[in-house]
């Protein structure tokens, strides 16, 4: 019977799925993509309301209209991949658009009861767990393609989802809050929301440094232990031209004391259009999300 050993290589393969090179780098945004979904607040109780927003990049779109559909879905992520179809049949659709949507927990609980699901799990007096992840899906579809013709079905569609923590019982812990980004430094030039586009010369590598509001970095405890932990801020980097050395960085230092939150942006030798965008997304590892959209003007080398 001693065949448990086969689980080990299975885990190796499991963790390696999706790896691979020779494709466009994930940090280079060339088509319609969802780069982030934010819930405000990221954690609620069963009577609360949550405002949803999304960071949608459409570099080829030239401002074309996008259709956004939001829905709450019921599925479990097992060990095997599956088509979660969210939004899809059996979803609880939310009113909203590409700018925002709202989850009203009272409506959701009532809908769950109608569906015959385990509404009892939402009983705050007898919670089976301290938090229940609620899954909200977003589908973004381009209404037209840049030359004005209708897109093929699914050809310009992006789908994503995020979890919202639902508190089932009152706890002394502070609810999770979204992290905040104050700004970013690109090649030594600081940028913050509302500022003018940054001007950067092409064909160089520049150091980029995130600036997070460390005041939004909370301490927390997991359900299964009593260890107080400090949130990890993880930064994801995207751009419409060039690539970043690291897909993501973390607010920490390595074993040699070097910062791990910085990144290197390799700019192309030349660009067709000078107007580009850099996106920086921060996540706290507990469903909290924030982002910056940085306009950049890439100048030719003199």
């Amino acid at each position, binding site marked *: *019977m*001693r*065949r*448990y*050993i*086969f*689980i*080990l*290589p*299975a*885990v*190796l*393969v*499991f*963790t390696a*799925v*999706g*790896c*691979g*090179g*020779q*494709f*466009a780098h*994930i940090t280079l945004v060339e088509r319609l*993509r*969802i780069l982030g*979904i934010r819930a405000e607040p990221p954690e609620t109780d069963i009577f609360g309301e949550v405002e949803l927003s999304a960071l949608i990049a459409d570099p080829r779109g030239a401002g074309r209209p996008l259709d956004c559909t939001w829905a709450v879905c019921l599925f*479990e*992520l*097992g*060990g*095997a*991949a*599956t*088509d*979660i179809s*969210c939004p899809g049949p059996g979803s609880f659709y939310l009113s909203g658009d590409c700018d925002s949507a709202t989850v009203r927990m009272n409506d959701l609980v009532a809908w769950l009861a109608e569906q015959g699901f385990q509404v009892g799990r939402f009983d705050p007096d007898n919670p089976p767990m301290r938090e229940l992840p609620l899954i909200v*899906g977003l589908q973004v579809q381009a209404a037209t393609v840049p030359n004005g013709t209708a897109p093929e079905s699914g050809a310009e569609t*992006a*789908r*994503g*989802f*995020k*979890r919202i923590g639902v508190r089932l019982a009152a706890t002394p812990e502070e609810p999770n809050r979204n992290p905040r980004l104050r700004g970013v430094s690109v090649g030594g030039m600081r940028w913050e929301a509302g500022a003018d586009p940054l001007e950067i010369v092409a064909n160089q590598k520049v150091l980029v440094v995130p600036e997070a509001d460390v005041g939004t970095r909370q301490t927390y405890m997991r359900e*299964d232990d009593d260890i107080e932990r400090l949130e*990890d801020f*993880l930064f*994801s980097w995207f751009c419409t031209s060039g690539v970043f*050395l*690291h897909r*993501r*960085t*973390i607010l920490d230092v*390595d*074993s040699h004391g070097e910062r*791990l939150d910085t990144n290197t942006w390799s700019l192309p030798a030349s660009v067709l259009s000078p107007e580009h965008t850099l996106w920086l*997304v921060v*996540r706290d*590892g507990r469903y909290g*999300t924030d982002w910056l959209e940085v306009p950049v003007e890439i100048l030719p080398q003199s």
Partner: protein
Amino acid sequence: MVPFVKNRWIVFIILLAAGFPAGVGAREKGSVAGVLVDKLSGEPIMGAPLWLDGREPVEVTDEQGRFDFAGVGPGRHEIVVRDPEHVQFRAAFEVTAGKTTRLRYALDPLGREEVQEVIIRSERLEAQVSDVVLEVEEVKKIPGTQGDIVKIVQSLPGVARNLAITGASGLGVVVRGAAPEDSKVLIDGHEVPLLYHFGQVKSVLNSDMLKRIDFLPGGFGAEFGDAIGGVIDVQTRPCSTKRYDGYVELSMLDAGFFLEGPIGDQVGFTAAARRSTVDMWLPEVLPELLPEGVSLDLTVAPYYWDYQTKVEWIPSTKNRFYMMVIGSHDELEFLFERPMSSDPSLRGDFSMWMDFHRIYAVWVHSPKSSWQLKWSVVGGLDRAKLQIGELRYLDISVPNLSSRADLEWQIAEHWKLRAGLSGGVYSYQSEQRLPRMPKEGEVPGKFQTLELIEGDEQILAYGGSAYATVGYAPVEKLLLTGGLRLEAYGDPLFEAALMPRFSLHYEVRPGTVFKTGVGLYQQIAQEDELSETMGNPNLKLERAWHFTIGLQQQMPARVKLDVQYFYKILDRLVVTDKDTVFSNQGIGKIAGLEILIRRELAQDLFGWLAYTLMQSKRKDGPDAPWRLFSFDQTHILTLVLGYSLPTGPVKLAHGRRDGWGFGLRFQLVSGNPVTPLIGGYFDNDYDTYLPIPGLVNSERLPFYHRLDLRVDYTWAFPIWALTVFLDVQNVYNYEAVEGIRYNYDFTERAYIEGLPLIPYLGIIGSF
């Protein structure tokens, strides 16, 4: 690197008991056919007188060194050779009714007071479709095996190719369309968790410790249970009580030693140990191989070690005792400074190690030539650990104890019985915090996004089995066998299974044998499937019926042809279930044809051509469609050839001669089925994409083919020999497809290519 190998002539036998339940011979008489050769020159010994059991008349070898005895009664016999130019030789062997026992002895010439140890395996009692006798020196010259004779199993018919990079079958062997975990690995009759180290680069046993491997791809006898696939039964060889021998070796793969010798007149010992050397150079090379920006600190490179020690006491011809300890360890550790995803816990240490240890106590009692009892008690400890970042881990420890007793008894002239009892108890202790692993046929989700299941389990499991096989030979050319096996599982299953197995063996005409068999096989589900926290403890035994029919034809020039058709029906297979996590709703069917054409070592040429045509399908529930099994390989063609071309005389001190050696191995194999991924969902919280799978195993990777070549030249000096060899793997640098990789959102894909041309130059010094 100068690896040393010992200079010894060992007969190594792989038995391809391919597809038939055990049977036992029961005919009136057997026969003996053999050959005597000079140990040093390899030349046949002509005119040597032989005595069988000390009786007259004396047999004398012919000009080819051959001899034979007809009408020999079943049981153990002794042969004595008194050739005036060689040391007197004496050896015991066994004869089976209705069988020809084939012997090959190498005798020391006078002037060197040593008796060559030869391990002889008489023809197996069971009815078989084929048997293949391979000598160690042959196998070591097959390219791609790194001198590891256990690896030759991967070139036998019915064995699927293991993918080099994606590690499709991981640590196991895919036999006749069965999952790796459906086949069982035994060492001296007791189960061990694995046969190979990581990546199947080496087996866990030193080749020089082995007497033979019984490779049983299906339809095996009632003495084996708890497996619905195949059985690989590795048996260690007896210890030498006559002379010391040994070597040390060092290569880029590992370093080790082997030592054997007598302790007094009745006791011998054998000891070997190995440790990989990969971790000493790989961390220096790896940073150059990784793409820019990937930070991977290989704190402990993949490394392994194994050990085997055996002490044997032979107080009389009727009793033999041995104690043996064996063990194996594999370890791997990475350090990821940067997070692998936006889950910060997927950062830091990524380590994996596993090991097993066994201690054997074995008694073989043969008071009469008509019966033999073998009793063994084995204690052991298996451990496996996995750590992925801070939060994900698995820690398994399984102390175990097992015992089995096997009896062979010639009941009457036409009847023979083989029977046995076995039992075992083990404590399965695990702590884990992992997501549930996907099953065969499922596409893995994104590891970091999955719900972690935490558990701390301890199961004291026990079980026992009894079997009996009766062989009946009513007429000269017909042998019928019938066997029955009872397996009983205690906690946690409390289930019993009765498994009948039958076979028929008919010699149509001299040199042509027809065989057929049928048997029922059952096995318990895997531990994680039976887990209270991660699985379903109420799972039933998985089940399979094996049907086999075949023809064996002896041909001229020492060529043997074996053709077999096999069919398996599987049911109660464990599959994922929405309600109960796992259930026994899976079924399967496997059909195939195997053809083996083999030429035994003759005039310095040996080799085989093996072809398997097969289809293996599964159905994961009553409403699920039939699909291909993930390791289904329609065509498996393997050609192995070896040739020696001596150019000088034999040197007396070590028996080697100047000369060339050539080896070739070619494989042509269908690509594995794969499930295409047709898109992805962006998971914001883990900053990753989840794959959307298409139809299960609805695509197939392209054909795989590869040619390996080996050439060596030996300079034989008076007291030692030097061999230089070049082993080239993937000679024509074929870019084999090992799998499919996708871009970040699964909208683009490309093939994962296999290993390129790898030349491997080596030097061997032997004495």
